């Protein structure tokens, strides 16, 4: 998991992860309808087998059943604990993400602006970049406690390095001739930054921002699994810690719903920007 966190984002703008590149094949409405029916039947069969599997009570405890999971979920919704956990996870993730993006992009642009400073700092940045950020989680807990701030710090630092690097990549990719032509016209360094460096780096920044949403999610969850008293990660950890299989399954169902929604939103946003760019 941590190996994934340190993967470098060499992705070019327009180049997307394969899983997001899946465009629906042109299908007739008839075959589309059959597919939906087939899927529903598959799910129904699976849940049916799960629900009515002729197994002993002992195994049933570990296997749980869809109806038990649903009623647990319903209970969480009614007593409001589900929304509290969801809210906790979301607020850690969003705060850390926004913080990491803001600082990463700003510093990336600054380094583009002061290439000499950047050259001095390169080895240090590279060393930190290579470090799996999750290893810092215990340290953050010592420094910042087990509350929200240590988790936000972990998410922010993960996102920060991703955005720093994609911004720097973007700035370095800028056509030097465009910079020179603007400078010859009398542009100041700030004007060159605003009119050439930033617009030229924007696709890279955007790619970095999109990719790091997933990393932010993973980092949030890991931080909550390690030490927390709230959040989706805590929900899984707590239930399995209490040997509550039904509770663990229910928490995972919530997690799946959450990731699917996130992916869906990202795909929509990406489609919108792609349309905008053409």
């Amino acid at each position, binding site marked *: 998991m941590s190996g994934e966190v340190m993967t470098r984002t060499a992705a070019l703008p327009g180049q997307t992860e394969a899983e997001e590149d899946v465009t629906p094949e042109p299908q007739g409405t008839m075959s589309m309808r059959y597919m939906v029916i087939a899927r529903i039947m598959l799910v129904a069969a699976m849940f049916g087998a799960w629900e009515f599997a002729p197994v002993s009570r002992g195994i049933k405890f570990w296997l749980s059943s869809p109806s038990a999971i649903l009623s647990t979920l319903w209970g969480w919704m009614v007593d409001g604990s589900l929304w509290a956990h969801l809210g906790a996870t979301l607020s850690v993730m969003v705060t850390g993400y926004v913080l990491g993006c803001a600082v990463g992009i700003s510093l990336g642009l600054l380094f583009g602006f002061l290439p000499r400073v950047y050259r001095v700092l390169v080895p240090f940045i590279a060393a930190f970049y290579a470090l799996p950020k999750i290893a810092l989680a215990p340290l953050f807990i010592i420094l910042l406690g087990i509350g929200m701030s240590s988790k936000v710090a972990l998410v922010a630092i993960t996102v920060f390095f991703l955005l720093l690097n994609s911004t720097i990549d973007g700035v370095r990719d800028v056509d030097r001739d465009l910079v020179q032509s603007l400078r010859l016209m009398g542009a*100041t360094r700030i004007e060159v930054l605003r009119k050439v460096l930033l617009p030229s780096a924007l696709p890279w920044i955007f790619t970095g921002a999109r990719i790091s949403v997933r990393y932010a999610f993973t980092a949030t969850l890991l931080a909550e699994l390690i030490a927390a008293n709230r959040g989706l990660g805590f929900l899984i950890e707590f239930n399995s810690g209490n040997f509550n299989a039904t509770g663990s399954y229910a928490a995972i169902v919530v997690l799946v719903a959450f990731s699917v929604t996130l992916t869906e939103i990202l795909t929509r946003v990406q489609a919108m920007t792609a349309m905008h760019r053409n």
Partner: protein
Amino acid sequence: MRMENNVQDKIAAAASTDQAATVADKINLEGASKTFHMRGQVIRALQAIDLSVRREEFVALVGPSGCGKSTILNLVAGLLPPSAGTVLYDGRPVRDLNRRVGYMTQKDTLLPWRRAADNIRVALELRCRPTSHSEADEKVARMMELVGLKGFENHYPSELSGGMRKRTLLARTLIYEPETLLMDEPFGALDAQLKLIMLDQLQALTQQRRITVLFVTHDLGEAITLADRVVVFSARPGRIRAIRNIDLPRPRDVFRIRFTDVFARYHEELWDVLKDEVTKGTDI
């Protein structure tokens, strides 16, 4: 043939005698040369050159591909330092970027994320050139009309043809009225008809605004049509083979001057020098 060469050498010699930097000179290259070091390889792009351009003069540089014409413009713009010798602008050495010149580069340097009109406008958005919004709009509209791009305001560079991009670049360079224009094959991608129209516009503009021009072209006819002086370069590493004054009265009729006898004589004379160099050129 032999006699002609003799004459040309005399012309070149005569031209190089008045090289002393006088106040009237806008640009002076004094023994300026350029050598590139690339992957352990030494490329002599330009031999020591002496050349001066007077204020409001139109000087055309012609020569085989790779002989260092663009390099000369880069030296004058301060984008490159000379390997030896000096480059003076207004009598002072060019150190950093030379902000007094407008440079229309050989390479397309339009901003790809800006529409044509916004590309042309960019110079007017800079702090050093405070321009009101309506004034900028008006100037941009006038420039678009001048270069014949009316109706293409909202096209991105990738949606324009090569010639249209060149014209957008020209408009972008002209809009802020620089006192000196460096132009590197500005009309190479245009068809003959449009090229003549653009030459006509350029002549009118530079005359009216009293602009000094250093103009690189591989089209000898274009050089003679516009220039006060034509400088012919040798093959790489470039050195001046001949400098010829073009004593044709202004304003010149860009569309007809090509059919006059005087023009033909200039053309023949300069072509004799140029064709030797072009066939010698190793880059083609």
